[in-house]
């Protein structure tokens, strides 16, 4: 298995404190994100409905990727309780939100993952599993591909590169080889194949301090290369910009790339990308039931704006649909160039 590096929390690192992360970004001599959006005429960023309920059901993971904004790892203890999960499923059932997006950590390691999928499927909702692929090769989780296929769960899988070196550099030694095996298994079940309805989408984050390339162009290249090299098929490639928080912030600082990376994000600010950012269509729920505008804000402990419900136990759809989004300097990560979201580019 991949080598496990200690999480920021385990190391007692100063970046384990979310406020420290935010302050480091604020201390850089860069235009405040709020000013950028205001100058471009967006005024305050506001939600435009909720199409996705994204639940982060825990920070436990079998990997410790270098760029992880969650600072996830095998030693993390934060796990969504049954009560919180029940509240999430109740909120979903009482709403018209079409999609449940399950993330982590490795969400499949959660003891009620199966149940969450089965019940959301019974409600007739689309389900997304944000999968690190390697988990499906562990003996206790080998059931996953067939189970996910039975419930028509969309698999969004991380793979930084179709080349060995960049993938292992970001995600750990041996991860590339395991990811290829896992993708081949998904393909055997019909995932990623035309006409099966089983969607297999890949996510690539740059394995370093640079921005992702053109999604459309890369997708064509990836499809060609993965088919030719490993006979692997998939539906879409999502390019996602690395968010300058969590372990990626640690990498940026220790490699001396923080200032230039942030300058790059700021200089690439694109108002069109800001229009499509995921927080405008998503409600994010933390392992403890707290509500956030997105998974990144969640990791920075940036709760929803004032006068809004702060917990899934108090959540009311109508008051959340048009809420003002909470912003800070990390938000440049979603608005640079063609934009970045859980579903790839936004512009």
């Amino acid at each position, binding site marked *: 298995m991949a080598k496990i590096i200690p999480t920021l929390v385990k190391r007692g690192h100063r970046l384990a404190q979310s406020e420290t992360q935010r302050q480091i970004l604020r201390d850089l001599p860069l235009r405040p994100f709020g000013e950028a959006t205001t100058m471009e005429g967006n005024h305050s960023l506001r939600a435009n409905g909720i199409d996705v309920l994204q639940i982060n059901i825990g920070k436990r993971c079998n990997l410790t990727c270098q760029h992880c904004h969650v600072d996830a790892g095998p030693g993390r203890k934060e796990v969504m309780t049954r009560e919180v999960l029940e509240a999430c499923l109740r909120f979903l059932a009482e709403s018209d939100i079409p999609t449940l997006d399950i993330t982590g950590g490795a969400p499949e390691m959660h003891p009620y993952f199966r149940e969450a999928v089965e019940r959301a499927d019974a409600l007739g909702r689309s389900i997304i599993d944000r999968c690190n692929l390697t988990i499906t090769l562990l003996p206790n989780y080998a059931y996953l591909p067939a189970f996910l296929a039975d419930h028509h769960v969309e698999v969004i899988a991380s793979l930084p590169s179709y*080349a060995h*070196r960049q993938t292992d550099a970001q995600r750990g030694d041996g991860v590339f080889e395991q990811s290829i095996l896992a993708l081949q298994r998904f393909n055997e079940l019909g995932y990623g194949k035309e006409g099966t309805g089983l969607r297999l989408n890949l996510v690539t984050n*740059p394995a370093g301090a*640079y921005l*992702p*390339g053109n999604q459309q*162009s*890369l997708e064509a*290249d990836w499809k060609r290369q993965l088919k030719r090299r490993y006979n692997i098929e998939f539906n879409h490639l999502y390019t996602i910009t690395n968010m300058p928080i969590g372990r990626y912030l640690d990498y940026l600082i220790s490699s001396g790339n923080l200032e230039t990376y942030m300058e790059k994000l700021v200089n690439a600010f694109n108002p069109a990308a800001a229009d499509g950012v995921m927080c405008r269509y998503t409600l994010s729920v933390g392992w403890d039931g707290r509500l956030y505008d997105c998974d990144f804000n969640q990791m920075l402990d940036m709760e929803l704006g004032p006068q809004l419900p702060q917990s899934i136990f108090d959540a009311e759809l109508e008051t959340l649909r048009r809420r003002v989004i909470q912003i800070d300097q990390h938000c440049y990560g979603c608005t640079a160039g063609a934009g970045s979201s859980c579903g790839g580019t936004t512009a």
Partner: protein
Amino acid sequence: METYYDPKDLAHFPDIGKDVPELWDKFLAWYNAVFAEGALSEREKALIALAVAHTVQCPYCIDAYSTAALEKGADIEQMTEAVHVAAAIRGGATLVHGVQMRNHVHKLSM
């Protein structure tokens, strides 16, 4: 440390258009069109630019197109091969001019 080629100077590249904006605009329009996806992909163009950057030995271009090539999906093996292509052409161009040298020597020699 003061250096003749300061990486931060790349951000001042647009200054070259300050007194001749129409020329700068034309250059930029052409430049952007050149690097757009076409018969060659953006990645292939970035790799060509990276190789040429090494032959013209422009430190700004080397930094810029090392980044661009990564962003367009190239990896370090492809980028290193591109630099070897540039070096091979440079080396070959030097050697093939040896023909001129030899012709000249033969002309002057008994």
